């Protein structure tokens, strides 16, 4: 699917009054979601940064219908909305916009349940790799070695790969995305909207205060994640697993920038030794091996 940037909706879906931090990667994602599905969706937002930055009731800083829901409930609430819409003959998507803690940790049972029963919802996990709203505590989606307030010397465990886990459920559509590549994310949202059943998009969203980097560099950090191979863009569409550009290029390791370029911008990795960086590079390679094997299947 191709589209022209100048033909994208001009309407602003993230408007003044929202309370997001400067340089918030999640809000960039929300803008793109608005452009892609803003008029045809109802958002379900569990406890997260997204629930506290919407703006203050009775007003809102997000020009989309939003139902705020308990932390672990969003896949099930979205299922209920989707089933109600079906029975009442209402056209539209139930879209979950949830953080990594709400998805990888507390909400994972409900997420797996919704995937297994193939609920007709679009689930977007915006991943800022920790509980940012409560003050940067580690989540299951925090990468190994990253500093957080509950891993003051760096997380010792690996990051849970939720997108791959969802693909292993055999659902109709799973994709990864990154706010530095809005066209790719936009296309994936539009594709998800065409498909009946369970759709999952894992969106990479840097967090300046949580990752300890200059808020002017959100997009740069996000782009470096892809260019160093730390974040891989792929999609799993009705059983076909494929890499998406520009990650396609980085299947060739020699084309990737050194991982250090990505790490050095972020204070959360400032304490890393050369050996730890090397170990992380090996993890990136191992991840690529897995993804490339899946893409060849």
């Amino acid at each position, binding site marked *: 699917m191709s589209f022209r940037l100048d033909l994208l909706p001009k309407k602003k879906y993230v408007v003044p009054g929202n309370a997001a931090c400067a340089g918030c990667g999640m809000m960039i994602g929300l803008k793109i979601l608005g452009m892609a599905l803003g*008029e*045809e*969706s*109802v958002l*379900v937002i569990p406890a997260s940064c997204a*629930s*506290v930055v*919407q*703006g*203050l*009731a*009775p*007003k*809102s800083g*997000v*020009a*989309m*219908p*939003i*139902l*705020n*829901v*308990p*932390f*672990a*409930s*969003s*896949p*099930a*609430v*979205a*299922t*209920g*909305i*989707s*089933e*109600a*819409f*079906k*029975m*009442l003959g*209402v*056209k*539209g*998507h*139930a879209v979950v916009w949830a953080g990594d803690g709400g998805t990888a940790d507390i909400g994972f*049972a*409900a997420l*797996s*349940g919704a995937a*297994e*029963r193939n*609920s007709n919802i679009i689930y977007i996990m915006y991943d800022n790799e920790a509980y940012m709203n409560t003050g940067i505590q580690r989540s299951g989606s925090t990468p190994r070695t990253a500093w957080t307030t509950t891993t003051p010397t760096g997380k010792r465990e690996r990051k849970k790969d939720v997108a791959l886990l969802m693909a292993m459920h055999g659902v109709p559509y799973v994709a990864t995305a990154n706010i530095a590549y809005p066209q790719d994310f936009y296309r994936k949202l539009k594709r998800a909207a065409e498909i009946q059943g369970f759709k999952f998009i894992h969106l990479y969203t840097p967090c300046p205060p949580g990752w300890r980097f200059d808020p002017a560099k959100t997009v740069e950090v996000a782009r470096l994640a892809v260019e160093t191979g730390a974040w891989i863009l792929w999609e799993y569409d009705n059983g076909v697993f494929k890499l998406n550009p520009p990650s396609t290029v980085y299947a060739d390791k020699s084309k990737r920038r050194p991982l250090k370029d990505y790490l050095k911008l972020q204070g959360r990795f400032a304490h890393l030794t050369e050996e730890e960086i090397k170990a992380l590079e090996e993890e990136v390679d191992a991840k690529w091996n897995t993804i490339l094997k899946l893409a060849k299947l």
Partner: protein
Amino acid sequence: MKTLTVQRTALTGNYAVAYAVKMAKPHVIAAYPITPQTTIVEKLAEFVEKGELNASFVNVESEFSAMSVVYGAAMAGARAFTATSSHGLLYMYEAVWWTALSRAPVVMAVVTRTIGPPWNIHVEHNDILALRDSGWIIAMAETVQEAFDLTLQAFKIAETVVLPMAVGVDGFILSHATEPVEIPPQELVDKFLPPRRPDVPLALRPGNAITFGNLPSDNRIHARHKAAIYQAHQEAKAVITQVDREYGKMFGRGYQGLVEWYKASDAKYIAVCTGAWCSDAKDAVDALRERGVPIGLMRLRFIRPFPREEVEKLDQYDLVVVYDRDITPAGGILGIEVKSALRRAKVVNIIAGIAGVDFDNRNFYETLQRALEGKYRDVEVVI
């Protein structure tokens, strides 16, 4: 109207609930298996699969998700139902509060069961009473017929008051006991229960950029929202009485509103209880009456809204004996609540039937007699 026939049949408590739900024509049902609730949703699944009920039946992976699914469905304008028991209710607890505080008019059957450990599937009321502070309307059935009637009424009450409602059915002694039931014709039920308004409490629709549940600019907005739920409970009392009156007119079978008074008008002493064992208590009242003891009974049909005005009338009796099939470290829940509304009357709170321990008409007779003889402390646990 005369051509419409009432069907007389025999059903278990759980099947009676399932038939009532079917006749209410819900759009969405979500459920997770737990004994002794399971036969309700099994029957509903069968209705849906056979095409007798046009609803979406969602099998979920937990009770927390069951409540979350019906919550989402109700907020999107659907009529929605779930059922649970005991640990299932506790597992969905956060969602239960969220549903009430969102004013989502969900209906749930709670087939009451003991909370463990040890594991125990038999009747106790602690589970449904855990709903009491959350904003849910809570009713308790005495008979299979009342379980049917309350379930049908629950949809109308919930959608009028714009709050969720739980119908309590005592585990096994009602849920799995077969009794004669009258099932009204569908045409009449449709008249009694018109389709739900999908835009109350809010019109959650694509393109309608409203938010529900985000942080308020002033905490007084939140406080007013909570106060409105308190107020809705006060107003619900009249709604419940009105709905029951309307139901009585249509189906020839009404109840007395929030509470049922039994042989109470000329009594000096009174027993208070809720749920299926009230029938046993009534037997004991009859037997004591035969021996010249002026005793009556008040059955709490509704726990929420708390029938304060009716409970205050208990002050005119010389002794009030409140039976609780629940237990807390502070005493029985009904005992505490009844006492909170009284100024004068002496109250004895008997906690009995815990963990499904049998407590029949003879046990009621004996314990009432002992209470009248002054042999009990203020709170007495009888095992």
